[in-house]
């Protein structure tokens, strides 16, 4: 009998690599959606483990809202340089300029929701049949029920009632023309797993994940980075705070948390003790209890 059991990080890693290789084996034109966040950085690391010394069988695709943290873009470009892989960028600004979407107005305006149109345009333009994403089932209730291979119709929509059963470790990626599949290799990871993996693999992250001094305002009870992308008025008081970010989204919808954790060990300790879940720092989920389900049905990541 085999005495050794795989450690949980090894098991999660092996599962994710298996899924990435299934994507390579089953699809003609896959892509890896890269946001610059820690989950997609983890995916890139897993892709290296799945395909090196060969090239990735897919390009990286970044949907750029134009409201980025500068640190993320610097990180992205350095990473692509190091990897020697192809990067495709889809700009939300293009969709705005073409009049396909309207910029939101008011204090809570964000480009987060506008990304969907650019994502679908980019998928159509390049004919991608599978898009690998870094979503995890522990993030949110609707995600908890999504398959690892999640089929979207030609409008990018997810239909929770028509999901294919996913049995054993056999993934059915067959689709009709026009449909595509979103693939989530780290579905079974938790936020803490991702951080533990980043520590184990000694991976670099954009600096905004670590505590730093930043000008912030308080909006809806949460700390937001003061930036030209945030609609501010005289009621918004700018204060310098020591903060870090738990997710990296659009600057106008990603809240910071007050933190002193500037080392990965401190972050892991903070998360272990934390009483606010990661998506709690995303204003875009707060709109209604069924927010994520609605956005996914509409073609969101």
């Amino acid at each position, binding site marked *: *009998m*085999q005495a*050794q*059991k*795989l*450690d*949980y990080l*090894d*098991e*999660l*890693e*092996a*599962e994710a*690599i*298996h899924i990435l*290789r*299934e994507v*390579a*084996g089953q699809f003609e034109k896959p892509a890896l959606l890269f946001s610059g966040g820690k989950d997609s950085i983890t995916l890139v690391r897993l892709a*290296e*483990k*799945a*395909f*090196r*010394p*060969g*090239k990735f*069988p897919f390009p990286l695709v970044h949907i750029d809202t134009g409201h980025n943290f500068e640190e993320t873009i610097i990180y992205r470009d350095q990473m692509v340089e190091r990897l020697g892989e192809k990067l495709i960028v889809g700009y939300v600004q293009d969709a705005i300029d073409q009049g396909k979407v309207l910029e939101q107005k008011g204090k809570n305006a964000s480009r987060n929701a506008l990304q969907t149109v650019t994502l679908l345009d980019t998928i159509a333009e390049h004919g991608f049949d599978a898009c690998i994403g870094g979503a995890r*089932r*522990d993030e949110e*209730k*609707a995600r*908890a*029920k999504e398959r690892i291979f999640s089929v979207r119709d030609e409008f990018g929509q997810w239909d*929770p*009632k028509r*999901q*294919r*059963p*996913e*049995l*054993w*470790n*056999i993934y*059915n990626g*067959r689709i*009709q023309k026009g449909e595509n599949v979103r693939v989530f290799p780290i*579905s*079974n990871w*938790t936020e*803490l*797993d991702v951080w533990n993996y980043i520590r184990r693999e000694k991976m670099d992250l954009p600096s905004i994940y670590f505590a730093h001094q930043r000008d912030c305002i308080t909006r809806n009870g949460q700390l937001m980075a003061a930036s030209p992308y945030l609609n501010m008025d005289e009621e918004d008081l700018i204060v310098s705070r020591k903060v870090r970010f738990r997710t990296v989204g659009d600057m106008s919808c990603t809240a910071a948390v007050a933190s002193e954790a500037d080392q990965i060990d401190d972050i892991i300790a903070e998360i272990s003790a934390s*009483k*606010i*879940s990661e*998506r*709690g720092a995303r204003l875009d989920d707060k709109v209604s*209890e*069924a927010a994520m*389900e609605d956005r996914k049905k509409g073609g969101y990541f």
Partner: protein
Amino acid sequence: MDILKFFTAGSVDDGKSTLIGRLLYDTNSILADQLEALQASNRKNDDGTIDLAILTDGLRAEREQGITIDVAYKYFQTEKRKFIIADTPGHIQYTRNMVTGASTAKLAIILIDARKGVVEQTIRHSYLVSLLGVSELAVCINKMDMVDYSETVFREITQAYEALAAKLNLNKVNFIPVSALKGDNIVHRSDHMPWYDGSSLLYFLENVEVTGHLPSVYARMPVQWVIRPQTEDLHDYRGYAGRILSGTFKKGDAVTVMPSGQQSVIDRIEVFDKEPEQALTGMSVTLHLKDQVDISRGDVLVSSARLTQQTKNIAADLCWMDQKQLDHSLTYLLQHNSKITKCKIADIQYKVDINTMKKEGADTFHLNDIGRVELKTADELAFDWYDENPANGAAILIDSRTNLTVAALMFREAV
């Protein structure tokens, strides 16, 4: 620390969602903002406490109807283990969801309402556990608070269940009297049942041994992808990428490529920048062979000490999962790990009434039907019998018109 995947069978009425909610709540696996959303929701128990079942109801459609219509995955961990729960609905119309949840689980929790005892759905759930070969089973006799924590009630139910378990060849059964609503014997031992000397459910989950790994001669790796950089310095590099389904491969092991039968020896094992001496069950690796052999996706590398079965005609248990019934005249696609081939259903041996476990004749299979069929595939499959090696003994059927997954298959015997 390892990971234990388990699934829960039971219906809303048995308090299954409450049980899972209780496990998450009492292990501090609910975070502040989730708790806030929970408290903001207006579903409460009769005594005004929070309805923990809400934690596992994901989709709005389900919340509106108060039922679970899909498999929801939940995560929690203790200092001993990480847990992945596949939460599946228990009504007969969701048999396919239960089969899905059970397919990746190493342990099953079956819930019995103490007031009702072993009922039709208990038989159904237990039959599925047996069919899918889930190795460990915890039978939770729930709502003990509603029967005055009576030892007699508990004993009567365990006796009735043992008779059922014997019929189904379920030999590792653990009984735990619980009240999910009140928290008795879920995370903490209960004071209400001094006659019970076993452990709480959580203690059991943390400590149960569920390796189930097969000896090394069962080494099998379906090839998913061939890595060929074809650069100047890696001109001859040819690595076979895949995940070890079962057994162990070591450097120097004699291997056979199935179904072609070509033989070679493992030259080295790569895991990114490391070269381990052996590849264990569950690892994703890249194997290099001593000889130049023709291998592509869908082939299986197996230990030459014990080859797989190799045939086009197989008797298999089938669970039908599609709204459209099985159509004999159609050619389906069969996907067995990384291999896809055309497949016909040559014959139906029988259908099983899963409430009574009686076999009956049938012309076709409808949604949620289970029974035995004879398959005829276009290409030879390299597989093991499900009872011996489930990881290499299962497949899915795909309807090539709709691309939907229409059935789960477990290979049972030669035709």
